[in-house]
């Protein structure tokens, strides 16, 4: 599980970098997304990519409004992806 989560975290950071159009090296878990200039329109792109890659649908709801840092976004994405995988299994 921990290896899976590490791989997933790495993949997600790459995905956030690609969709948010920032250098992967700039992305560290504690950085606020705003500081990386990742805005609501980028969120929608990131969520679309998560859906394409992992099949998990994340609506722009309550949980997402609480997301501030890269780590917050990763936590939310991982929980949704794991919930989706559990439901599919």
């Amino acid at each position: 599980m921990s290896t899976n989560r590490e791989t997933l975290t790495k993949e997600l950071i790459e995905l956030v970098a690609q969709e948010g159009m920032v250098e992967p090296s700039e992305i560290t878990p504690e950085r606020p997304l705003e500081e990386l200039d990742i805005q609501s329109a980028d969120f929608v792109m990131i969520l679309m990519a998560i859906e394409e890659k992992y099949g998990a649908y994340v609506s722009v709801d309550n949980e997402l409004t609480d997301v501030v840092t890269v780590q917050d976004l990763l936590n939310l994405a991982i929980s949704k992806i794991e919930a989706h995988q559990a439901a599919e299994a």
Partner: protein
Amino acid sequence: MSRVVVTGLGAVSACGLGADVLIDATQAGRSGVKPIHFDDLDAQRVKTAACLSEADLGEVLGEKPHRMREPVAEYALAAAREAVAQAGLTEEYFGDRCGVSIGSGFGGGQTLNINYLKLGREGSMRLDPMSVPKIMNNAAASWVSMEFGATGPALCLATACSSGSQSIGMGYQMIASGQVDRCLAGGSEACLESGVFRVWELLRVMTAEQNRPFSKDRNGMILGEGAGVLVLESLESAKARGATILCELVGFGTNSDAGDLLRPDPKRAAACMRMALKSAGMTPADIGYVNAHGTGTVANDVNEVTALRDVFGPALDGLDVSATKPIHGHALGAAGALEMIVAIGALRRQSVPPTINFTEVDPKIDLNPVANVAKPKPLEAVMSNSLAFGGINATLIAKAYAPS
């Protein structure tokens, strides 16, 4: 300025055919949300919508679908026929003194979708030759004008989720100013089509679970469809023909945020409600029930409650507010018309319809809406809000008719 009254209501919705059917469903908290499946979508993420039942769809479209009409036009016609019949309007009451104001957010979504799929998949040049008149946004308004011979102004406002409310508001203004004696006003929408549904999924404002406006565990809206049409008349002409008056339309406010296309501005929504109150000559204390826009997205709920608190102040805690979208869905361009019919239903039945699926007050907004069960109470005046993408707000106010 002429006083404006409502003498007829008509509705087509996921709850069934008829304004009374819609009002019954909202009062009983009976949802029209159903499973929906699109063969064209490889992976459909959201699997429910407030769509018409197969039986109702068959009844509205007829055995042989009209070659020139989209469902969006048929829904509007069905709602208009019902409203006109209830109002008892006969041929002599149409002509130049009758306007039509029927909005739609999308227009003919079905033909557009079929054409794109056929063109993309088969490269077919053999598309529906009647596509243009079927797709154009004003088709519903035009078919309604032709059906009844209403040769006054025909308008089609395409202002997304405010189309229906603004269209009723425009009808109200045309009558109040004396331009026409009566108007068939409302909105129609029929865009539950694969391509349209997918782009709503991509915007990520739809819930894959249940629609729960104002509830702590809300996570998005549910799409709907249908049409709502009101017969609006000047009090004078309604009285002259001995019509039964259902209620009086007393207030209309509309403005724009001129800010962000998607993110609403609570100051502007509050200003819109104040404008409607001013035109009604009312204070916030006169309103007994607010049918909220209440989509169940976090952006709307936070915005609308902030605006309501601005307008109603501490009295908001004692005001009855509900969102009926979990019952009839978010019918976009028809939403404001369906919800005004629901609000008028509340006024006529002296009972506030509930916000169903509500579980827990959200501390972020701290609003305790009328939840899950209808609340009977004396009502003198009701308000309905529409707050659209594009930053377009509209508020309508109706009150019980009292001959003066």
